[in-house]
């Protein structure tokens, strides 16, 4: 008998605890203000409270928590990147992900599936081999495999991809995983809230006060706050905030669309990515195929999605899996991507004292949620860039020392 369900149905008050408290008003001052209650912002607040003893924190969110790109990505977690800085960073993230559900006491539906980046040309095979070697050198489990290994892991695939882009090999990354994106925001949010962090939704930042080259406060739609430290964690909308403090960045915003099919019984175990066909796909715990393709080709500050995106992605999916021709598309949406010239993020201190950036997350931000929270918490608490993020400093562009990860970004560009 479903006693708990019956009790729930008969209750006059909602018996389940909330994930975090609502606060009537903003306090006049905080030690740290985080702009953006996505996975990254909430993770930073969580680690600041848990590891650095800083609890007088406000996380300000214009909409609802996790309503930005945290709720819009295609949930792929991996560390098979190209540069030593990138690999070290994302590998630490995968390590943190594994214990996260236990830390939160919340089911994140974290599922290690194995991740194939398919190579359809000789030059792609060379890039996969390069990535495999860099990964192995840094202790990350990646290797170059042949088409027969792809077929063994995924018998339904058409190795010839419609005849015009045959799979010649793949980069196989065993630790590749997926997780429930919303749950990550809730988990970090609840964990931060339990430790005294205040989460303020429907609170828009209107301006940032600066005096003598340092941050002194934040002006919001619900009142003004004085604070010496502001962490900007609104990737997808970063330029609006950096404009408030006259900081120039290379960030440009393009929409990134995604879609899901109706649920079906489990058949796709691994995560598949194809650079030539510009698609990536996995099957979620709900049985839906979660798919994405390339960035929209022009700047746009909107989360609208289009018919031509669905048509294009469906056509390429049918090249790999012709049997899906009758599968129905259930839903489509988009996020806004903070793109950078080298496809690596922009993190750490800025020329403005007390203003910290966690930005430039482009199409690679979800997998980095735990490690960016941890490294940004260290950076804000110590006013010093964490060693793992030095390769992502804002000044690297003026220094002509880019961290080139375009070859390892799975999203078409």
């Amino acid at each position: 008998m479903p006693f708990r369900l019956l009790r729930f149905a008969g209750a006059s008050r909602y018996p389940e605890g909330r994930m975090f408290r609502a606060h009537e008003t903003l306090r006049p001052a905080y030690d740290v203000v985080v702009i953006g209650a996505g996975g990254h912002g909430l993770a930073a607040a969580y680690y600041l409270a848990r590891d650095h003893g800083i609890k007088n924190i406000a996380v300000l969110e214009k909409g609802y928590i996790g309503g930005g790109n945290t709720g819009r990505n295609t949930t792929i977690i991996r560390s098979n990147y190209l540069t030593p800085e990138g690999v070290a960073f994302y590998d630490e993230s995968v390590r943190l992900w594994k214990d996260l559900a236990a830390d939160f006491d919340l089911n994140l539906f974290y599922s290690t599936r194995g991740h194939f980046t398919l190579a359809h040309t000789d030059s792609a095979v060379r890039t996969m081999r390069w990535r495999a070697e860099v990964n192995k050198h840094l202790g990350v489990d990646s290797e170059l495999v042949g088409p027969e290994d792809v077929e063994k892991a995924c018998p339904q695939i058409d190795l010839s991809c419609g005849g015009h882009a045959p799979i010649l090999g793949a980069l196989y990354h065993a630790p590749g995983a997926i997780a429930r994106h919303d749950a990550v925001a809730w988990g970090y949010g609840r964990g931060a809230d339990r430790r005294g962090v205040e989460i303020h939704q429907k609170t828009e930042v209107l301006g940032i006060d600066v005096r003598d080259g340092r941050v002194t406060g934040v002006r919001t739609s619900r009142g003004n706050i004085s604070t010496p430290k502001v962490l900007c964690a609104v990737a997808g909308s970063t330029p609006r905030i950096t404009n408030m403090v006259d900081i120039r960045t290379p960030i440009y915003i393009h929409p990134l669309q995604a879609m899901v099919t109706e649920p079906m019984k489990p058949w796709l175990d691994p995560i598949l990515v194809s650079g030539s066909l510009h698609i990536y796909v996995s099957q979620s715990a709900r049985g839906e195929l979660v798919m994405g393709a390339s960035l929209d080709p022009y700047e746009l500050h909107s989360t609208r999605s289009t018919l031509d995106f669905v048509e294009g992605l469906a056509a390429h999916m049918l090249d790999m899996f012709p049997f899906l021709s009758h599968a129905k598309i259930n839903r489509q949406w988009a996020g806004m991507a903070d793109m950078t010239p080298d496809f690596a993020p922009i993190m750490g201190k800025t020329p403005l004292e007390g203003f910290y950036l966690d930005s430039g997350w482009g199409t690679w931000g979800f997998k980095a949620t735990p490690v960016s929270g941890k490294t940004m918490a260290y950076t804000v608490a110590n006013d010093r860039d964490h060693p793992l993020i030095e390769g992502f400093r804002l000044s690297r562009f003026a220094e002509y020392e880019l961290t080139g990860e375009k070859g390892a970004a799975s999203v078409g560009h």
Partner: protein
Amino acid sequence: MRCPINGLRPVSEFQYAGEIRPMPDPDTCSDAQWADYVFNRNGAPGTKKEWWLHIASGIWFVAERDTAADKVLNTYLYGEVPQS
């Protein structure tokens, strides 16, 4: 989208090429100014003058576009006085 020469054509016939940005003189500007030109962008939403290419005819032109509403306000050849 309206190509200034060919008129209204499907959006798929066009290619976006970024906001029009003034280039400093590479022979006289500092490394910092050059890096700023090469890398930095005007990333916030707003109405921008952008380079677009009509791929089918090879014509480059200027489009004034509201990048939040995705509305093209005007298109004209570079150097022409825009009529709106």
